[in-house]
Structures are given as C-alpha cells and as structure tokens.
C-alpha cells in the first residue's frame, strides 16, 4: 500500500504553556472565523466534491475497482498471528463480506473526488475481533485520516476505556470518527462517546438529508433504509441498517471538510447541527 502521508500539524502548542493562556499569549491563538451570520447548507458544502479529503473505511475490506467505489488509494489488513501479535499487512484479498465495499460506495456516491483507503479489521472470525478492531483504529488515527468510517461496534466493556482514549485522541488530532449507533437497547462502543459523530437511520430516500437528534447519545440520523449499495463481484444490492447511515454521514462530513479544511471536529459538529434538516438545513 502506498502509505498515506502524515497530515501536517496545524498547531504545535510549543509557544504556549500546556493548559493555560497568559494574557499576553491570547493574540497568538487568534482564530479567523469566516462563518457567515447564518450558516447554510450551501455555504457548508455547496459545490464540494470531497476533493483531497482522505477517508478511511475501517471494515471488512473494500473490493478494488468496483464500479461504485472507483479507485482505492491504499488498503491494509490487520491480522492476529498465532503468537497473538497483531500485524498490519498490505491487503491483497479485498472484501471478504461485501459490507466494507457497500460503505465505500456510499461515501464515493456523495463525495466523488475524495481519497478512499481501506483498513480491514474483520473477516477472520469472531475470536480476537475486538483487539484487531482496536489496533486497526489506532493505526488509522496514526495515519491522520481526515474521516474514519466505523460501521461497527463492540459490546466488550474491557475495550471501552481504550476505545474512549482512541476516540478522544482522534478528536484532538482532527480525525473525524463517524460511528454506527445501535438500534437495540445495548451498551456498545465507540458510538456512545461524545468525541465521535454517532449515526442512526432515518427512512427518507435523499442521501443528503440528515437530522440532528436533540436527545443523545445518538447525535445524527442519516439515510439507512432501502439503500442500493455496492456489493461483492461488482454487484449492487438493496440494504438497510445503521451501518449504511454511517457512511452517508461520513460522506457529508467529507464534503464539508473539503470546502472548509480548517475545521476541527468540534467545529464540524457545530456545522452539522446548524445545517441539519430539522435545524436550518432544510432550506
């Protein structure tokens, strides 16, 4: 795989004390805000094709050159060796299930010029899948992807602390983590963490329609019912689930970031709120 280059650091923090802001230093962190008085959907993403934004599909792999996916810029697979070590290797098998391909196709349909990468953390069975998922996420954050799509979760409490740290680390490093919420009353992670963008499904058919949920923990609803998605063998199938709402939200985030690359995850989430279909984005 052509290794993705590290994202340039936008702020090093070297000139300021760690956790305080002396009066004389306040000028150094001046933030130029060019948001309009009223943030609209058109200002946020109008005309954007997602160009230049690096999107990681953390999933079952992605079938390369699927007509609905197009070209992949890189693909790796994580695997647990017999010695219990987790290794990252170039992915030569593509998608083992179809799910990662479906997610990649949805992101591509919304953001045709984004740069897609696949990190395969699933497909080798259930045993050890939590540990592989964790390492895959750690690896993806280390690569500095702009958007990481996670249409999966774990229910294992033993992983929640570490996942929480990783989610926060992504948040502070400006990697936007978009994670599938559960539609069953169970505790699972990482979608419950406030540092990620959590996504459930709505039933409407417009891929750009999304709603803000004023009653978290699920924060947004995106298209996830009866979606025509890319599948194995160049095929297309109709599918439903929060797994497919999530890449819709990833695609929308990609469009906004391509137009406004300076945004932090915090600011991006604010724009998502302001432009949600039930807030100000319906017009």
């Amino acid at each position: 795989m052509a290794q993705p280059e590290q994202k340039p650091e936008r702020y090093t923090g070297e000139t300021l004390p760690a956790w305080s802001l002396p009066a004389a230093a306040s000028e150094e962190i001046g933030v130029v805000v060019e948001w309009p008085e009223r943030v609209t959907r058109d200002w946020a993403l109008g005309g954007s094709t997602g160009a230049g934004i690096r999107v990681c599909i953390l999933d079952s792999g992605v079938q390369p050159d699927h007509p609905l996916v197009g070209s992949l810029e890189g693909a790796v697979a994580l695997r647990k060796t017999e010695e219990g070590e987790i290794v990252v290797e170039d992915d030569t098998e593509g998608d083992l299930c179809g799910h990662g391909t479906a997610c990649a196709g949805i992101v591509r349909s919304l953001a045709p010029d984004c740069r897609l990468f696949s990190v395969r953390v699933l497909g080798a069975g259930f045993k050890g899948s939590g540990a592989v998922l964790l390492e895959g996420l750690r690896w993806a954050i280390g690569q500095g992807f702009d958007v990481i799509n996670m249409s999966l979760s774990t229910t294992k409490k033993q992983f929640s602390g570490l996942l929480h740290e990783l989610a926060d680390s992504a948040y502070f490093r400006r990697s936007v983590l978009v994670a599938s919420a559960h539609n069953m009353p169970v505790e699972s992670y990482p979608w419950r963490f406030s540092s990620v963008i959590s996504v459930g499904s709505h039933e409407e058919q417009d891929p750009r329609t999304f709603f803000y949920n004023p009653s978290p923990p699920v924060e947004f609803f995106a298209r996830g019912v009866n979606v025509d998605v890319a599948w194995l063998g160049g095929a297309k199938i109709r599918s439903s689930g929060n797994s497919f709402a999530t890449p819709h939200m990833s695609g929308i985030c990609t469009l906004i970031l391509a137009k406004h690359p300076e945004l932090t995850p915090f600011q991006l989430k604010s724009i998502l709120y302001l432009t949600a279909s039930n807030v100000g984005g319906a017009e």
Partner: protein
Amino acid sequence: MSDNELRAAVSAGVMSAESEHRALLQSIVEVARAIFSAKAASIFLHDEETDELVFEAVAGEGSDSLVGTRFPSSTGVAGWVLVTRQPLVIDDLEQDPRHARETAESTGYVPRAMMSVPLLHDERALGVLNVLDRSQEVEFSLGQMELLGLFANQAAIALDLLQRARHAQAVLTQSGSDAGAIARIAAALEDLDEEQREPVLRLLSALDDVLRADVSF
C-alpha cells in the same frame, strides 16, 4: 467444588431441561417467521471454543436437517452481523453469487432477502437471528427493524438460559455424586405436590439448621 459450581449444579436440578429451552428458541423462530410472513427463520449460537456458528433452531425451509450444523463465524452475512454487532437487512441477494453459493452450501436454501440481527446479552454476542425471504409486499421500514430487535432480545435471553443450563449440567456431570445428589433432591422437590412437599421442606429446614449451627458433635 466452589460455591459457584455448586450453585450451578443445583440450578441444573431446578431449572427446566435443555429440551424446554430448545422449545422456547423454536417458538421464537416460528413466531418471527409468521410475523414477517417469511420463508424461514433461524437462530445460531456462537460456539466460543471452536469459533463457529451453530444452528440451534430453524423454522420453515431446511428445518428438518439443519439443527446442529456448524460453519465458521467468519462466513457470510450472519458472521458479519455477529462480529460487528450491527443488524443488517439485505434484499436482492441473488445478485451476489458468492453469498448465494456460501448460503446454499450451509443451508441448502438460497434466499433472495435476509434480515440478520445479533443476539446480545450484557456484553456478550451470543449468536445471530436470521429471517429469510420476508414478505416483499411491504417495503422494509424502521418499524420492522424495531420488531426484529425485540425478537432478538427475546432470543438472546433464551440462548443465555440454554447456555447456562448446559454449563450447569456439565458441572454436574464433572463433579461427582455430591452435587448431583443435591440437584436430584431439588428436582424431585419441584415435582412433589403441596401435601408431599411440606414435610420434606420441614426435614430440609431442620437439616439446614443443623448444618448452620455453631456446635460440634
């Protein structure tokens, strides 16, 4: 023998037999199949030791021969659902030849549509509930997804009971006659009618007092 094992062993005596838990699972797949007007419904248990999915209950197509059949947990849509803990609904499966072949090999039946939901209990993923070829007269909706989730909760509780009963029976089998005798007494007590039970309970209560008494003979 630890307290936990003893408790498990005694529980085995008072809890209903495995066949009754199986009947509960069977009832769940039958109802799921009927509610969704589906061709078939099935419940898989994840065998942690072998990392395989095992058919525990099947209603409809293939129901005669599939119970007990195993396949790797990395296989197909059910495997995906187990690992991701995310429900998945797929239509037009015939467009996916690889899936069709895998499914045909494992079930002898190739569905066109599949609803698959993980069976989650506490923090464990116990297995998967599949509903095949639901009626296509009504387009899939979030209401159906919610219904599927409700069935999944019920199935997860039933699977948990089945696993506990099996574990308890395994403990009983391994632990020799002491716990077995206690379990047999507990089971026999359950079967007695009111009149017979009362004197036996008095006797057991007296025995309990003697065992708890801080005296030595």
